[in-house]
């Protein structure tokens, strides 16, 4: 039983990262019906940007707390801008084109980001400064580190902020309107292009937050890290019901838990098989995901 709770703690920690990345998939999908295959790589770029700033500032002997805040701010904002740029260059011109062509440019952007980072930083692992020691506390024998606690709380805070933004602000309402009916939203005077860009900004911003935290938590990053996390987060978004924001959050945590239990009770070699089988099982029973709504079709 103690092992179970230990796996749960691990699962929730990685699940929180997945949830943050899954939000970007689900928000973009909700608004322009695109599976943004480059999103996992924006997460990766966020981790590298955070590393660059952190290492540079650490070299200048700034206090670590200041360096950390600056690194977060710089990485998140720059990644957000990167998301907007990707949308403008590779997606916006193809919104009216056949849907698979935009999927291919997304794959192209994904490859370009991976290989761009590979060219700049090289193929090896980079190591984040060890800021988050293993210190922590234990509840009934279950070890919980302070790092895990802080990251989980930060992730939840970001998700809660997003939820408030989408449901309590005017722009958030416009965003939801857009997701329901783009043409109607445009006719109501909503600047659709602006909202789409904002969506990309927020999604990339959150992914970069997960990227920097993942770097701090695991301390090792590589140009290839976006693929696996992107895949898991995408799975999470679909499991929760793609297009649904609370669904992505729940899906992320659930995938984190599945991965952790799978690795703990089965074998890490079979984790992905386990995760995908659960996903397929859920979709067979509920074709729109756990929280997804039925799509209405007119005749």
């Amino acid at each position, binding site marked *: 039983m103690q092992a179970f709770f230990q796996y749960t703690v691990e699962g929730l920690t990685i699940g929180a990262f997945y949830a943050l990345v899954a939000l970007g998939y689900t928000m973009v*999908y909700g608004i322009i*019906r695109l*599976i943004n295959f480059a999103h996992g790589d924006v997460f990766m770029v966020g981790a590298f940007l955070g590393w660059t700033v952190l290492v540079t500032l650490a070299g200048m002997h700034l206090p670590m707390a200041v360096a950390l805040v600056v690194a977060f701010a710089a990485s998140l904002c720059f990644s957000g801008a990167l998301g907007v740029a990707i949308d403008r*260059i*590779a997606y916006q*011109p*193809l919104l009216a*084109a*056949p849907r*698979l*062509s935009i*999927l*291919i*440019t997304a*794959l*192209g*952007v*994904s*490859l*370009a980001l991976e*290989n*761009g980072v*590979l*060219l700049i930083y090289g193929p090896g692992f980079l190591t984040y400064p060890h800021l988050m020691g293993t210190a922590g506390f234990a509840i009934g024998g279950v070890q919980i580190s302070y790092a895990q606690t802080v990251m989980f709380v930060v992730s939840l805070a970001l998700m809660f902020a997003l939820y408030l933004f989408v449901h309590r602000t005017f722009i958030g309402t416009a965003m939801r309107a857009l997701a329901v009916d783009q043409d109607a939203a445009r006719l109501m005077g909503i600047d659709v292009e602006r909202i789409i860009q904002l969506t990309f900004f927020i999604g990339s911003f959150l992914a970069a937050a997960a990227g920097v935290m993942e770097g701090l938590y695991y301390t090792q990053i590589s140009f290839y890290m976006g693929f696996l996390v992107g*895949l898991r987060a*995408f*799975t999470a978004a*679909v499991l929760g019901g*793609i297009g649904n924001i609370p669904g992505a959050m729940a899906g992320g945590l659930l995938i984190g838990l599945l991965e952790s239990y799978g690795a703990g009770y089965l074998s890490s*070699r*079979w984790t*992905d*098989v386990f995760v*995908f*089988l659960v*996903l*397929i099982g859920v*979709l*067979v029973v509920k*074709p*729109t*995901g756990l929280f997804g709504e*039925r*799509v*209405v*079709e*007119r*005749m």
Partner: protein
Amino acid sequence: MVDRADPAMRAATARMLIVAVAAGAVVLPLVSDDYVVDVAISILTFGILGLGLNIVVGYAGLLDLGYAAFFAIGAYTTALLETLLHFSFWETVPASLLFAAASGVIIGYPTLRLRSDYLAIVTLGFGEIVRIIANNLDITGGPNGIYGIDPPVLFGFEISSPKAIYGLAWAFLLIVILFTRRLSASRLGRAWISIREDETAAEAIGVPTLRVKLLAYVMGALVGGFGGSLFAARFGAIDPTGFTYLQSINFLIVVVLGGMGSTPGVLLGAAIVAGLPEALRFLALWREFGFAIGLIILMLVRPQGLWPARVARRVELPEDEGGDPVFAGKDAPRGETLLEVRDLSRDFGGVRAVSGLSFTAHRGEILSIIGPNGAGKTTVFNCLTGVTRPSGGEIRFRGAPLGRLSPHRIVALGLSRTFQGIRLFPHMTAYENVLVGMDPHHRVSLLGEIFGLPSAGRDGREHLGTCRRLLRFVGLEEAAGHRAGDLAYGDQRRLEIARALGAKPEILLLDEPAAGMNPTEKTELMTLIRHIRDLGVTIVLIEHDMMLVMGVSDRVLVMDHGTLIAAGEPAEIQRDPRVIDAYLGNESDTDETAETPEEATLWDS
């Protein structure tokens, strides 16, 4: 037949291109070194896999991000049977096809009811599962894979040199080209295009969409397994790194970049995806990056693909003996009860769209259902055709309850329909639309069409003849080769009727056929409706145009708020005070903004 560009010119260009490619293919191994031949083999392999995936993505419009799984299954089948059971290469190929097809069923079945975006992750997951299994099992050699696969032997000659493999790859590619082209021209191929265009409409006019989708996966898997066998023979060794997600992505890029649904496009895409990275070798480390940027630019410049599939196809419809189309009800006695609706109800959430509705339709009559917007008329049609499941009540057709039959089965029984908003397959030609409508009565076998058997050719000509007759019947013979989406509005309405008649219905359900027509067209439509009835087809009509309704109907049913408020001959209905009330309204009833219940949701399965 009409075609945009000069067809003779086009055919000549195509012939020249084929001759040029064939000449190049023959000369290449004579003048090039092994490296170039090796790249060429890669291009051919990508061509095979691209054409296979094109069946799923291009023809049927289903997304597959795990296509490498079928490739892997074919390759591992050949490798295992050769190394463990000492089969010859040729003996392993049928087994590869069999296993790949079986896995096509396994992946296809759970995904059939999913929308395309969910398909992406499920197919991706399937691809990963297959790769991880190959990577983790002992029998597949784990990460090391399987080596020591013997090369194929043909008439005592060992196919192992690059040039020999090159020849084998061409042979495989030509077989696949022939196979996929036959498929696309077959009845199944048309059904695929129809579900790509509009799956709901395809089901509602009689296409068994679930089976058709499953067959797309199976046919795609067959080609993937075939390519896998070739791959194993080529390298003599395989390991899981050859079947990654990235490989599946490459196959998808081949199809979309080249042009979905287009054979030359896919082959061009294969040449680029397999050849361009080689050509970019001078970029050294920047090669992959350059390829990615190149891919984005190509897609931005040519969103339809480099060589998109041609839409309007030329066809010579065979001459038929003329005359009207023939229907089953032609000589049946008029007046017997054909359709019996008892106490039909349908709720949408808290809204009761249809409530306790009962009526009958008799053979040979024209029965109209009228009523204000939101009265529940279209919901009745949707219940009759199986598109919506009734919440209560019973529908009996020719004495037997329809129960929970799926729409295409109901069409096959003899109830076919048109739609309130036109739902033709806009990128298919007029005659192809009608041929899809005739699907429930096609008896030709798929194997016959693939192998080009004479019986299939005979059946095909006979069907084209019937198709031509139907088009002439609605006055669209001249437009047979036009894209349905390009036709004038009234013509589209009549084409929908021809398509519905293709199913040889006993009852034809027409949902507002006169909407948007001008008075001349309406008059012609009235003549057409009477003519169809005279051929033995019973007609149930939803219509707002009173001139038309009162002009053609034998009986009229009036619905309001989901219930029947009047029924009778046109003259009686016109005098009925309740009908006048429902149409002109009283105070409580004039709220124009009230949402019509039947618009809340229509698709319920």
